[in-house]
């Protein structure tokens, strides 16, 4: 063998090793991964059935009202216009599927990411180990883990949610950690000085004060989930992403454009709405959320009558 061409031989066969390991995991532990799918499946199916099953115009009205409640009348109108455009383009069904995947992902990212972030803020050592893991989840190209995900979880919308979950989890963990750490120390000290235990301090002082930052994390998670829509359509996830992918495959520029525009309009609606939810009551002039928007309107009408 020529010493100059030493790298012609594969000395460390990472590829085969990984393949063997994965095969071994699939053969022996597939049932675990199938069990992991169950909660994702339940939430996703519920949301998807609800969103696609409801009459289109009713759904449009509900989402616009939610946007109005969160961000005022103007945002409500923007949401109605965006959703109306999606519907008129003929991408309604697909956009509801995509919305249900994104929402499922947000539910799980929040339910797992916020507690992780809180623990990370309290325990430096835990944060020290968590950080590189989060970096890995964010930087590893999602194409790389598409294959093992398919092998372990098979294809379909639920696997799509899991792929998206891995990619979109880090920001909510990071920003929850940051938000809790940034709470003014004397606020926490005051809570302790008046006899609060750790739990009371967390729920009554730290979490409410960190909420704007945490919501910024949730918003980032939503945006990252949306950016995975097209990639995840490669493991036969349905929805707007699939329109784009099919458009690319068939060089059908029209179809790809409809899918792409649909993603943009959907992104505008959920980005603005989730951002508006993160604005603290302080910055809204101390109005409780139920004193404004359509609910506030109904309540004030109810009082008058």
């Amino acid at each position, binding site marked *: 063998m020529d010493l100059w061409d030493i790298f012609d031989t594969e000395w460390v066969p990472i590829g085969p090793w990984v393949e063997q390991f994965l095969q071994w995991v699939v053969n022996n532990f597939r049932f675990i991964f199938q069990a992991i799918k169950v909660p994702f499946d339940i939430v996703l199916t519920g949301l998807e059935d609800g969103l696609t099953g409801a009459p289109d115009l009713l759904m449009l009205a509900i989402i616009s009202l939610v946007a109005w409640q969160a961000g005022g009348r103007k945002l409500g109108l923007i949401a109605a216009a965006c959703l109306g455009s999606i519907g008129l383009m003929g991408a309604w069904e697909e956009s509801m599927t995509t919305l249900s995947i994104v929402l499922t992902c947000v539910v799980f990212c929040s339910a797992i990411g916020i507690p992780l972030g809180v623990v990370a803020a309290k325990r430096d050592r835990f944060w020290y180990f968590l950080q590189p893991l989060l970096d890995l989840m964010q930087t590893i190209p999602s194409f790389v883990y598409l294959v093992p995900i398919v092998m372990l979880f098979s294809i379909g919308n639920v696997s799509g949610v899991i792929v998206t979950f891995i990619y979109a989890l880090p920001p909510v963990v990071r920003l929850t950690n940051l938000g809790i750490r940034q709470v*003014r120390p*004397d*606020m926490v*000290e*005051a*809570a*302790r*000085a*008046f*006899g*609060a*235990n750790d739990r*009371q301090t967390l729920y*009554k*002082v730290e979490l*409410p*004060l960190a909420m704007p930052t945490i919501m910024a994390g949730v918003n980032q998670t939503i945006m990252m989930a949306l950016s995975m829509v097209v990639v995840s359509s490669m493991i036969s996830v349905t929805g707007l992403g699939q329109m784009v992918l099919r458009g690319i495959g068939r060089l059908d520029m029209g179809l790809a454009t409809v899918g792409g525009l649909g993603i943009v309009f959907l992104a505008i609606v959920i980005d603005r709405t989730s951002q508006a939810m993160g604005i*603290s*009551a*302080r910055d809204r002039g*101390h109005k409780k959320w139920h004193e404004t928007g359509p609910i506030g309107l109904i309540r004030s009408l109810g009082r008058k009558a």
Partner: protein
Amino acid sequence: MTAQIECRDLWKIYGPKSKQAMEAVLKDGLSKEEVRDQFDCVLGVRNASFSVQKGEIFCIMGLSGSGKSTLLRHVNRLIEPTSGEIHVAGERVDTMGAADLRRLRAETIGMVFQHMALWPHRTLGENVGFGLEVRGMGPDARRDAAQRALEAMDLKGWIDHYPDQLSGGMQQRVGLARALAADPEILLMDEPFSALDPLIRRQLQDQFLELSKTVRKTTLFITHDLDEAIRMGDHIAIMNDGEIVQTGTPEEIVTNPKDDYVAEFVKGISRAGLVHAETIMEPLNGRGPTAKTIRVGADLAAIIDQFMEDQEPLTVTCPEGKPAGLITIKSALTALRG
């Protein structure tokens, strides 16, 4: 008179090797610098002992970094002592369990913070009622207590407002109301008025003194301002570099500073209201009582008022009328100069 707060031989050393540092300090009497260099530890409080009697205002005065806030936080154990004993209202705090400690903090000790530390997401009522809330009191009773505490601080009608809608002085009155809401026996005040402008500070000092006269809370009051300490305190402890340098009444501190450090502080203090007739009078030594008299306990300002009319020496008389000593204009002026 019983001591409501008593700290004995309290030490606080910060750092991972605080235990070893503590042993070395006790054995070899290391200085602050030696502790830092040999153990990489910071000496926060050095062998502090003091006691606060029931109902009095006890001021701890020192510059920033002197350890006064650290010392204060030992009383409700927001900071754990490295060594020493803490007794509060008849209970031993330094060995107390977590649940007892939370009860003590919620029921026996109220605390006021330098930067108010009001929670911005809670209304004034929710801020003031926090201590009662964590003890599990119902919302209506909590609101009543908060309302009473706010009224006592002239904040009637603000209960549903938020802290950022108030001025700094009003915010600190909320801070006081929060500390008083559970009707604790003890108040810990960590430079409560130093973030306010001078006029508001003066008003709040007066308001607090007025309030203290009626409710008689045992108060530990931290300040970096000797004028404030003298105005507020029945007793004053002066701290420097984690150590209590001198403890005494305002008059003792001003007339008899223990070392140069204290003397330096005392220099600029007006003594007219602090020095009393019995401190500066000379023995009678056979001289007969003079025509003009002044009572024991009169302060220097009153004595000067007498000398403004004419310069004849004053006879100091006891309450029952017996002459106790003599003050000449010379001794009065000497006392004023310090």
